[in-house]
């Protein structure tokens, strides 16, 4: 599904990613953990095609296709979805209008006609229910005045609507209380399937209690320094990141 080889990326003259290798197979959930500033969010943004970063070396393939030269919307069309760490406000654009536009643009890109309005509405209602969200949500301007938890739920709501092949969740658990964390995790779990993969970026192991990963990687100083199964997450939770840092220095 996703193959990253020896990826180096920088912003300005600062190197952030220093040789990332990652192989995500269909249906797999990979967790990427690591201390602040290790390059987790950069990795998410580089995969999604944000222009602020310069890729200096390496490659990113999705389902065998080189996506590095693609504009972000074309990567989305390939089936890539990024749940943002800080979802942005777009005043005056309602959640429903935004999701409708996005869904229909993706359909257009695939050569399909716009989705019938009543089918769309049904789908929206089902996705709302999945995230225990109120219908009034649809008519609110996108992320404007949303609480931290609402913003993250809205991200997963969009994911449920757009049905990506590969979803990257960038610190989706930050700013969530325990109930919201459970709801968001349930939403993600409901979307898990043999043909959909996840890359879950997080500081903490608590999200991984709910979304159980197949693989756990530790990112430190722009490199994956340790990989393992879910027990690695437990170990990190118990011991912190210091032992990783020491091992590297």
């Amino acid at each position, binding site marked *: 599904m996703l193959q990253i080889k020896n990826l180096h990326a920088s912003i300005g003259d600062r190197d952030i990613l220093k040789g990332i290798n990652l192989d995500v197979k269909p249906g797999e959930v990979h967790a990427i953990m690591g201390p602040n500033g290790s390059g987790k969010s950069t990795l998410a943004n580089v995969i*999604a095609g944000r222009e602020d970063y310069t890729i200096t070396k390496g490659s990113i393939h999705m389902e065998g296709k080189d996506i590095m030269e693609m504009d972000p919307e074309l990567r989305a069309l390939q089936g890539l979805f990024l749940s943002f760490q800080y979802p942005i406000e777009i005043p005056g654009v309602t959640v429903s209008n935004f999701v409708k536009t996005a869904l229909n*643009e993706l359909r257009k890109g695939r050569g399909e006609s716009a989705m019938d309005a009543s089918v769309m509405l049904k789908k929206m209602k089902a996705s709302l229910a999945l995230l225990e969200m109120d219908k009034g949500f649809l008519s609110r301007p996108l992320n404007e005045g949303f609480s931290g938890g609402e913003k993250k739920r809205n991200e997963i709501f969009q994911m449920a609507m757009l049905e990506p092949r590969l979803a990257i969740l960038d610190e989706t658990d930050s700013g969530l209380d325990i109930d919201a964390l459970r709801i968001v995790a349930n939403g993600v779990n409901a979307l898990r399937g043999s043909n959909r993969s996840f890359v879950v970026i997080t500081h903490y192991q608590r999200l991984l209690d709910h979304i159980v990963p197949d693989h756990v990687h530790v990112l430190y100083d722009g490199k994956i320094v340790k990989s393992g199964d879910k027990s690695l997450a437990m170990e990190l939770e118990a011991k912190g990141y210091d032992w990783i840092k020491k091992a590297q220095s």
Partner: protein
Amino acid sequence: MRLWRKLHSIIAEMGQDTILDDVTSSEYKYGFETKVDTDIIPPGLNEDVIRTISKKKKEPEWMTQWRLDAYAVFLTLEEPDWANVNYPKLDLQTISYYAAPKKVQINSLDEVDPELLVTFEKLGISLDEQKRLTGVAMDIVVDSVSVATTFKKTLNEKGILFCSMSEAIEKHPELVRKYLGTVVPTSDNYYATLNSAVFTDGSFCYIPPGVRCPMELSTYFRINSSGTGQFERTLLVADKGSYVSYLEGCTAPSRDENQLHAAVVELIAMDDAEIKYSTVQNWYPGNAEGVGGVFNFVTKRGICHDRAKISWTQVETGSAVTWKYPSCILKGDDSVGEFYSVAVTNNHQQADTGTKMIHLGKRSKSIIISKGISAGQSHNSYRGLVSISPRADHARNFSQCDSLLMGDRCGAHTFPYIEVKNPTAKMEHEATTSKIGEDQIFYCQQRGLDMETAIALIVNGYCKDVLNQLPMEFAVEAQKLLAISLEGSVG
């Protein structure tokens, strides 16, 4: 309205280091000139020219004198320079003040110059189609002369008068004489006074007491000839308890020269009447380097009597320089004035626009919602005055002035003036300045929207409060126009 239907999108060049970087201009879609036989007088401005105009229009003596009086005042005035715009001063002696497509005695569409009909086709307006499908009554002013007014019969049955200003002067002199210049006096300001002296046509509308106009009335303005100015005059009188919704649209050919458009619009809302006046202004804005384009120096003002309401809605995307302040004199008690504006400037365009709300009546209310969007190297200013007179007890105003910047070479400016002379007044003023962010665009792109679609979505969201005020079909076209005006503004 199908003014902007046949438009194709231009794909912005991509791949610069930052998204909001260079500015390229999208092509103006209405830049053609129609070859029609035109009756045009030599350039120049003096009393004789004014007499010639009046004579060509077969006007009565009082009208000629009215013009000459205005001209006498004009000679004492100087061109204002307080607006936040820079442009080369126009030499008024180089402009021709009368240009008319020949054959203008129109009784039916068959008599309209076929070339002009082709023009309307290009603009997406088929008069026939207009008549049949849209139910919009339309007056069309090309250069200076009104060439067609559709739907006259339906309106006649209601007693509604909707015709060119020339026809009104001829057939309804008592109404014209009673109201013309009562809201915008001939001595009002440099451009309005010039207009009073040399105006050549425009639209006139009268709605009798208690009548609700059954359709949107519409005027379409176009400058066609080179070296001419357009000076149209609109007078709209809504008698007691009546209602009318009025739309105007404008385009012009692309030229290297700057053309002057100095219009005057006067609205009169008698007791309990309501006027909704919507404008989509898309005069030629000049090319990407700032050469050419229309100077749009317009005076628009309405007066509200007791419990009357005037609502101005404007979507301003064209013109090289715009200088325009649709205003309300809230003379009557419980009268209401509204101003909803979207002003977009791109490339080298400059706009200084806003409103004046003059509260004289008790419990008079006004709302101002202004949305400025600046892109390229343009400058966009909001200039507004809210004045509460000593006798306007319990007057209220709410103002919201937002500016949106695209890129880092444009400017947004806000000049709100508030004068309160009555302690019972309630005033609220909100202002924001924001930048269309690369973050917003990236977010949209990540969800599958290309850049143009993303910008259109963000801008339309930002303008929503204003676009919602437009009649439905107009709103859809305005949304498209906004997207087109900003095409290539990022790349």
